[in-house]
């Protein structure tokens, strides 16, 4: 029995769904953020696996750029969370519902 690309893809899909579920279920902004990171990593895994299957290095470049963008996103996102916390003293997104109709 050899490990085929399908296995990796299924693993990535499961991780992605776990991340998505975390995003929907948790209300701590930091945990939600981590869930998003989880989803991004799941996608990265698919890039690498498919790139290997196709004998193409492009998949790894995609991972590289996703990584950079994710890093930038984390920096700004966490800064936003910190500044929200400074004004509201909470990290719960449910309490940020001023935009309610």
């Amino acid at each position, binding site marked *: *029995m050899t*490990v085929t*690309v*399908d296995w*990796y*893809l*299924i*693993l990535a*899909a*499961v*991780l992605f*769904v*776990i*991340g998505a*579920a*975390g995003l*929907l*279920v*948790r*209300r*701590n902004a*930091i*945990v939600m953020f*981590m*869930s998003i*990171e*989880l989803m991004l*990593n799941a996608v*990265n*895994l698919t890039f*690498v*696996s498919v*790139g*290997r*299957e*196709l*004998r193409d*290095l492009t998949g*790894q*470049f995609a*991972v*590289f750029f996703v*990584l*950079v963008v*994710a*890093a*930038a*996103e*984390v*920096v*700004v996102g*966490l*800064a936003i*969370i*910190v*500044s929200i*916390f400074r*004004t509201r003293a909470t990290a719960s997104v*449910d309490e940020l519902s*001023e935009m309610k109709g």
Partner: protein
Amino acid sequence: MTELVLFFIFGALALVGGLTVVAARNPVHSAMGLMLTLFSLAVFYVVQAAHFVAAVQVIVYAGAVMTLFLFVIMLIGVDKAENLSETIRLQRPLVVLVGLTVVVVGVFVAVGGRFAWITGVVGAGPEVNGTAEAIGDDLFTTWLLPFEATSLLLIIASAGALALAFFRPRRREGKEEGAP
């Protein structure tokens, strides 16, 4: 054979880590779970000959990004167990419903077996080897422009983070800000 063993060990670890992220009451535990998953994925990258990406994964993600996460968790003091009971009505059942749909679709696709995961020419040419040299060669030729663009993005992100850090909410006299 090695790959098979590694897949099962680190696949299981990755799933455990992922579930920990979602299910842990304490955000610090969530962060640890995420770290576990990240390491497991790094192993998979090595297995799939993406050496450079694996290294970056460990250094940037598991190193820098996770440190940042933990730092923020400590800074704003949410490093204790929190109540996980749902407050939004119907949120949990609907999440379960959506999740079940995904599972059903996934099973259907997997069992059906007629779904082409990968379209394109498979297995032509030599195996890829994502060494730092191979990546660097292409990165500074083919991908130079996007690469430079990411440097700009990083500068903007750090400037944005600084701006947000210096931001002080103005106190409005006598008025609770943002009351609905």
